[in-house]
């Protein structure tokens, strides 16, 4: 199996797709090879400054802890644990998080072993090896191994409260299908979707895969922002939280950490949308749902 990089520098860095391409070998994608970490770090561009957020070991410690806790079990379970903690450790602005080269560096330079462990598919019936999809290293935000967790935490948190993130990440279909849709950029919509899961209205992957397209399609004619307005955003709590990174304790163990102290999503907005989505779901075609299961 691909192992922990031998060389881990002090600070996080950036690496472009073009540069990354030469390190994403077929052997790495099959989990047989390591990333040549010294060469990789030569090609990477180290992030300037002395910001505590950019210390590499903070992220690596988190990855080590995740592997320790979940390494012998089902890898998908680790998402719900890692997503909020990765978000809380990195403390990025969205502008910073839109930098793809940072995520590529995390996957190749900081934790290729984690990417392989988490995303290596089962060997096929014909005996061919399992593989990690290339886009787990260099893909869009809803596919890349770490970007998807960070964005899930950013889009599903309720202000400082990461509990909805844990719920969303507990269902791979919610994580995979909702994250790529623009509708979750509206916070009450994101929380209403999670709410339906938590209440058991939608349970299986098939349920989720019926719900999210229905909600998305309805958004073409309905303005959820008017039906269920979010509270106004204030950038100060986020800036304070980022400034507090220096003195923050690592969020490794124990309780779920707190996110930035932003306004919570109005409960009434979430309730209105949840009721609306429940109606949409009742009418949506679910694969394998027969009329007997229908409520």
């Amino acid at each position, binding site marked *: 199996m691909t192992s922990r990089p031998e060389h881990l520098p002090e600070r996080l860095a950036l690496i472009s797709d073009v540069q990354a391409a030469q390190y994403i070998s077929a052997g790495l994608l099959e989990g047989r090879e390591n990333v040549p970490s010294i060469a990789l770090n030569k090609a990477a561009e180290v992030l300037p400054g002395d910001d505590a957020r950019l210390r590499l070991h903070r992220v690596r410690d988190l990855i080590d802890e995740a592997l320790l806790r979940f390494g012998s079990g089902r890898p998908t379970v680790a998402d719900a644990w890692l997503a909020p903690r990765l978000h809380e450790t990195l403390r990025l602005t*969205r502008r910073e998080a839109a930098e793809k080269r940072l995520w590529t560096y995390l996957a190749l330079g900081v934790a290729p072993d984690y990417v392989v462990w988490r995303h290596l598919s089962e060997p096929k019936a014909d005996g061919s090896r399992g593989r990690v999809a290339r886009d787990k290293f260099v893909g869009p935000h809803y596919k890349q191994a770490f970007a998807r967790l960070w964005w899930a935490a950013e889009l599903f948190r309720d202000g400082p409260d990461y509990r909805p993130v844990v719920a969303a990440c507990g269902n791979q279909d919610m994580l995979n299908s909702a994250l790529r849709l623009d509708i979750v950029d509206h916070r009450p919509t994101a929380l209403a979707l999670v709410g339906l899961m938590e209440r058991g209205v939608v349970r299986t992957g098939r349920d989720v895969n019926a719900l999210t397209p229905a909600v998305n399609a309805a958004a073409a004619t*309905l303005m959820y922002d008017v039906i269920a307005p979010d509270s106004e955003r204030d950038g100060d709590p986020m800036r304070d939280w980022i400034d507090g990174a220096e003195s923050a304790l690592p969020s490794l163990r124990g309780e779920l950490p707190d996110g930035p102290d932003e306004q919570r999503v109005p409960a009434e907005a979430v309730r209105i949308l949840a009721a609306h989505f429940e109606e949409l779901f009742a009418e949506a075609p679910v694969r394998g749902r027969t009329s007997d299961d229908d409520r």
Partner: protein
Amino acid sequence: MRAYPYPRLAGAVTARVTAVRLRGSGDSREKLDSKAYSVVEQVVALGMAERDDWQTARLALTATVPAREIETKGHWSDLAVVAVLTEGATNARTVARLAPDAEGGRDWVGEIEFDRDHHLDRASLTVHVVATVDGIEGRIIGSTDQEWMVDMSADAPLRDRRLDVSTVSFTRGAEWLRSFRDAPWVVDTSGRLPTVHLNSDFEGLVALVEGQGSKVESVVGEMLLAQMCADVWTAVFHTAVGDLEIEDDGTPLFPPDWRGAVLREMLPDIVPGRSDEDALREVYIRRIGEGSWASLQPRIQYAAARRAEVPQALAGTVRDIERLDQETQA
């Protein structure tokens, strides 16, 4: 054309930015000059600010809605006019409600405020008219046809973006460039914006492209630039098509960033006479091997050359060479 199960506005909804204010740390404030936004281009260029450490921007907006149609048809109640600012790269979405300037009037005014940290590059601003229709609340009954672009760093309010050209030594520059050491230029489409890397080791090239030399050099330089642009368009097109996101039902989606803009720009020349969506589907089907990908190549080259204005540049070069010949003979 999309069909809607409820009545929508036939008249146009338009919007314009009327003022831009920025706020930085320590409560510093700046009102941008009106040159920073263009009603013709529908672009706001926030790079024209005096200071680049601003934290929030506030845009004043006026939207014009077909008020008479709303009144006479009478399908709609609880009218709301909302401005929505989004950026795909940061999943950002900011919404502001506008208010009628005068009771029953056509103009609705308001302000939308957003954080610099919530945006990367370019956000798009749309205005929607929302109403209760047939007892259903929150229906979108009309939207602006063309969105405004809010560019976080541009220093001129232009919709089209200038090509990013960087001059680097391929032998001493970034590692991946070393394998291209004999090439005059390389197009890199992996970044936020496509970039042309000009090889400074290639003797005389930079002077040619910058057009600082003799007449002959400037004639050739222009031709070279057009050729380079054509390379960029071709490379960008292939990058965009090679990296499409596909819906569960197999429908390819336009990428949210410049790749999508490039596709929309080039598709009418590549698959003429079709809607953007149909044209994209056609290209995608050919790309994945159902139908001929090879036969599409001349059309891609044609579209790229047209965008890069290669025919004009070539015609100009031929004319200039003739003129130079005459001068030397005289």
